[in-house]
């Protein structure tokens, strides 16, 4: 989230698209009802199904799964055609005026530089024209034909309401009504918020879906303002924390990168991370990268990381592929190239695509270690549960160890919510039976591995032997100790660069925040963005002051919001070029002639003059990007791409399948179906009664939605002879499930051009463990392919077939 949950109450218009906030985030959704009840805000829902969110919406429109980019580009086109643009904002705070290289272009659904052999783009043309002064060239009049604005205008001009109707199946009157409602928010005193979740991310072009809406929000001037923003609703209470802390194979905490094998030494690694400003006077905050990186290395290896050895850079692994994401891990596993797999706190047998492949992959492991509070399907993948897990147990040789861990209510620590709030919580119970905290388990494993290295040596023992492990009880680091380490500490006196006599933080004390991080080895800190969470003021995450001066929704003294307790990112953009709020009634920051004042911690230096420094300080340009240069693998503008399994051919290029640069493993490509074989579009989601796969183990949740079902339209039911509450068989090219049929008017066939597309909905939750009835999950059906940029699996759009089935499922 750029904003916070509580800020949603400030909005005038909520657009829920690519998510189902009421269903999946009912507690956060209260802020939508607040906005509706107290501000008269309107709510728009665009979804293939008439969802629970739609049930309280002011306006609903259906959309075919996987066609969101066309809808969003259609909206941008409509805004430009109808002059619903917040011009001052667009000119000052976006890269609309930047001149793009002449070589850049788009045709037949593809941008320049596509190499079908490599399934990748040569992105060199996707960039600005850089002048002799080293800065990007701009034309503030927006008249230059190669400026971003004119390129964007041309790019989206194809997305007429008619094309939107043809591609998305959204009736054009519904589309136009929504465009009008959204267009009103181009006024400086009207804001719109976008609430999205896995409905946008779980596509092979998920990142581009989100880009599309972000661009629309920029054009409307809705980023950085109260009641605006791009608000990703995270699917777990701490999934934001997972991302922040870098629990991905290519990340280091705080969105730093694991080196690749093309970066064998520190100098090479840092040379591509200079982040020099592309416009004069801009902050380009990533210029501080070395400070964050060195402090991280000091946190990891202490005295063993020093200037002379490039901060122990050689300790870091070097990636030979872009990522070892879970899809790749299971691909390798299935190819017999993985021996041991540690599975901590997730249940991949149900939560990753193509379950048959997952079972096959797990069966090839030598050892599977599952750390989880619950008995998961993954840990029991080898058990035969009849049709619900029909495996040949005798043929599976994988040894499985289950290490019971504690639940969230059984330990202290911080959960990071979607709004970037680090909320400390206290354990309410002790873990039952043999369950132990994850930290204890990890410490035991580490200490034993370390002992093996000490006793027996090894090829490269240094990173293990030198790892900082200065916890009071080495057997179990406490959450407090870990939190302090994330915040960072002064290893020597930290002095004010402007006045070296002045000690800002004395040696051994907690750093105030990341502004005190140093790249000379005098500070340590494991996650720069979290710095400030536990400084000498104490545990700021444990703050519980619910005072909210002037009811702005900021709640500044409630817990800690990264970065720097900032509640709304890019908040400088809430004020115009003179530093006055776009909407005085929704003031966030204001330039008082000398400094920025207001309700939030400003992005830019508090004394940076309004006209000088752009709000988007993380970008080298100082402004936001309508044109994202080479930052994304699949294009600097979003372009319509069909799902890999789609009932329709791509309207721009019938030969193009899915996302042309998404990674597809050979065996999986063969398992993609065509609409001739599998004519029905399907999508998956979770239900509000459940929390992923966990609540199967809870009687009450199980009772509230007891049995696996699929949702189908009355029309499809009539066509296939399916009756309400009867059994159906649903199958894809990869597997099949048996479910109860929930026949509903909430799903309707969509007319896409001359094709009538039926959509069925497949909820997730059920498996073969726990209190709920045994059932299946959508992942028995879904294709093994992920987003081109971040490898989130394409769970939201695939093809199936359906027929009535008879007989009782084995339960």
């Amino acid at each position, binding site marked *: 989230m750029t904003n916070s949950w509580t800020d949603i109450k400030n909005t005038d218009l909520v657009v829920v698209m690519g998510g189902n906030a009421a269903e999946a985030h009912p507690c956060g959704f209260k802020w939508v009802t607040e906005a509706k009840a107290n501000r008269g805000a309107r709510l728009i829902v665009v979804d293939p199904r008439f969802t629970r969110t739609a*049930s309280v919406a002011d306006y609903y429109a259906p959309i075919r799964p996987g066609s969101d980019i066309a809808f969003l580009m259609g909206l941008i086109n409509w805004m430009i055609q109808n002059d619903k643009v917040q011009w001052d904002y667009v000119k000052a705070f976006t890269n609309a005026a930047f001149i793009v290289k002449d070589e850049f272009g788009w045709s037949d659904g593809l941008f320049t530089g596509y190499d079908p052999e490599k399934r990748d783009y040569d992105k060199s043309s996707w960039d600005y024209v850089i002048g002799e002064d080293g800065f990007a060239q701009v034309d503030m009049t927006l008249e230059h034909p190669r400026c971003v604005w004119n390129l964007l205008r041309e790019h989206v001009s194809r997305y007429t309401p008619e094309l939107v109707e043809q591609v998305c199946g959204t009736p054009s009157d519904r589309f136009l009504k929504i465009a009008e409602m959204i267009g009103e928010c181009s006024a400086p005193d009207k804001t719109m918020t976008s609430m999205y979740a896995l409905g946008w991310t779980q596509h092979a072009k998920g990142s581009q879906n989100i880009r599309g809406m972000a661009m629309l929000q920029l054009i409307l001037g809705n980023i950085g303002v109260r009641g605006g923003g791009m608000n990703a609703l995270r699917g777990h209470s701490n999934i934001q924390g997972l991302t922040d802390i870098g629990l991905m194979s290519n990340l280091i905490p705080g969105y730093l990168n694991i080196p690749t094998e093309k970066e064998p030494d520190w100098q090479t690694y840092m040379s591509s991370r200079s982040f020099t400003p592309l416009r004069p006077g801009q902050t380009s905050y990533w210029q501080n990268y070395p400070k964050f990186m060195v402090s991280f290395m000091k946190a990891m290896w202490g005295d063993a990381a020093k200037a002379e050895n490039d901060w122990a850079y050689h300790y870091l692994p070097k990636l030979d592929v872009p990522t070892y994401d879970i899809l790749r891990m299971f691909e390798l596993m299935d190819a017999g190239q993985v021996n041991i797999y540690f599975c901590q706190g997730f249940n991949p047998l149900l939560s990753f695509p193509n379950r048959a492949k997952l079972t096959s992959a797990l069966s090839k492991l030598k050892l599977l270690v599952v750390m989880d509070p619950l008995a998961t399907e993954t840990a029991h993948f080898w058990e035969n549960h009849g049709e619900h897990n029909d495996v040949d147990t005798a043929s599976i040789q994988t040894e499985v160890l289950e290490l019971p861990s504690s639940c969230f209510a059984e330990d202290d620590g911080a959960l990071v919510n979607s709004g970037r709030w680090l909320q400390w919580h206290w354990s309410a119970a002790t873990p039952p039976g043999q369950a132990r905290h994850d930290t204890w388990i990890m410490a035991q494993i580490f200490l034993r591995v370390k002992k093996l290295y000490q006793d027996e040596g090894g090829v490269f023992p240094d990173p293990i032997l030198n790892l900082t492990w200065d916890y009071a009880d080495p057997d179990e680091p406490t959450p407090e100790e870990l939190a302090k380490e994330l915040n960072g500490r002064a290893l020597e006196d930290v002095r004010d660069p402007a006045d070296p006599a002045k000690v800002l933080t004395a040696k051994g004390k907690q750093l105030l925040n990341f502004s005190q991080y140093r790249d000379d080895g005098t500070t340590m800190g494991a996650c720069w963005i979290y710095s400030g969470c536990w400084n000498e003021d104490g545990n700021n995450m444990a703050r519980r002051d619910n005072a909210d001066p002037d009811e702005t929704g900021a709640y500044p003294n409630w817990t800690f919001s990264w970065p720097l307790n900032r509640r709304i990112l890019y908040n400088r953009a809430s004020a115009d070029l003179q530093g006055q709020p776009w909407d005085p009634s929704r003031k966030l920051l204001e330039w008082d002639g000398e400094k920025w004042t207001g309700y939030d911690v400003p992005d830019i230096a508090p004394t940076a003059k309004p006209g000088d420094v752009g709000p988007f300080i993380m970008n080298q340009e100082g402004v936001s990007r309508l044109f994202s240069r080479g930052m994304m693998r699949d294009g600097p503008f979003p372009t319509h791409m069909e799902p890999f399994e789609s009932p329709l051919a791509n309207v721009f290029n019938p030969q193009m399948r899915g996302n042309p640069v998404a990674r597809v493993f050979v065996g999986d490509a063969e398992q993609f179906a065509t609409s001739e074989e599998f004519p029905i579009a399907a999508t998956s989601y979770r239900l509000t009664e459940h929390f992923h796969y966990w609540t199967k183990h809870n009687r009450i949740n199980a009772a*509230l939605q007891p049995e696996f079902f699929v949702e189908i339209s009355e029309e499809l039911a009539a066509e296939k002879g399916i009756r309400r509450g009867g059994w159906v068989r649903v199958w894809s090219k990869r597997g099949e499930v048996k479910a109860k049929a*929930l026949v509903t008017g*909430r799903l309707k066939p969509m007319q896409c051009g001359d094709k009538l597309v039926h959509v069925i909905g497949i909820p997730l939750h059920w498996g073969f463990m726990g209190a709920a*009835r045994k059932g299946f999950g959508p992942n028995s059906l879904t294709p093994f392919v992920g987003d081109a940029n971040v490898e989130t699996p394409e769970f939201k759009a695939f093809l199936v077939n359906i027929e009535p089935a008879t007989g009782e499922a084995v339960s």
Partner: protein
Amino acid sequence: MTTDPNLDSPRTAVSNPPVQPMQANLGPGDVVRASATPDLPPPTRELTPVAKLIDVSKCIGCKACQSACAEWNDTYPEIEQNVGLYENPHDLTPDMFTLMRFSEYENPQTGDFEWLIRKDGCMHCADPGCLKACPAPGAIVQYSNGIVDFIHENCIGCGYCVTGCPFNIPRISQKTHVSYKCTLCSDRVAVGQGPACAKACPTQAIVFGTKEDMLAHAEARVDDLKSRGYDNAGIYDPQGVGGTHVFYVLHHADQPSLYSDLPEEPRISPVVEGWKGVTKTLGLAAIGAAAIGSVLHGLMTRANKVSTEDETHAEQLVEGREPPVPPGREVL
């Protein structure tokens, strides 16, 4: 708004409740009506009437209320089958005092599809049909704050409350043979907390407070709905049962039956009124009269005795001698 421990009942379920232990303040002295108890002593004080407002236009059907209800009341609803509906359990049960009911509606005026979700449960009528029908003294009580509660140790499980209720709410357990329904969390309200469902409701579609405050809040909600084109938005606080202490804001207040058959004009059935009214009184009177009449007849008239003459005649008859036929008596 924080609950003042001196207030007779909480004013909201949303604010933080008192954390200090409180003396329960709903006691026998607050009972204004009790089933089958005609000679109930008058209450020792008058509590402020409370109400739970269910704003269906804010409800997202998440079932948090159901979950909180089962948790608080420690009930164990069955893990049933899916029968092609979102209602689970499929109906109110002795273990599920509240239920989200879902109905799909194609609005002919707007052409829009609507998914109308209503939280069903006891309405806590001012004139409770269950209480009227109940034969067990003190099994159903009404407190002066409006809460209608079942006192399970007095319940005999006869099911009369089922016939008395205009909303089809009470459910008799086949295990304990006692009737169950929403208590409006009388045990929470008694110690300054709001009902569990209202506490759990994420969108504040369920709010709790004094009836007066809730009505005012409801009026504001109706205005908001009217501004969104729901011209017939309104409050459902049916006067046929004297108003209710659980009431609704509906977008289509002119058609309550759209919401999973919410009764259009609920009232205690005249049949039940007749049964518990005139039948009860007249019946007992008739029985009494017959009994007394019999006794009086017995006292005031001579018993019908067999005379020795009769015996003689019988002997004559048995011996084959026809006794004289008395005058005026024919042999047929």
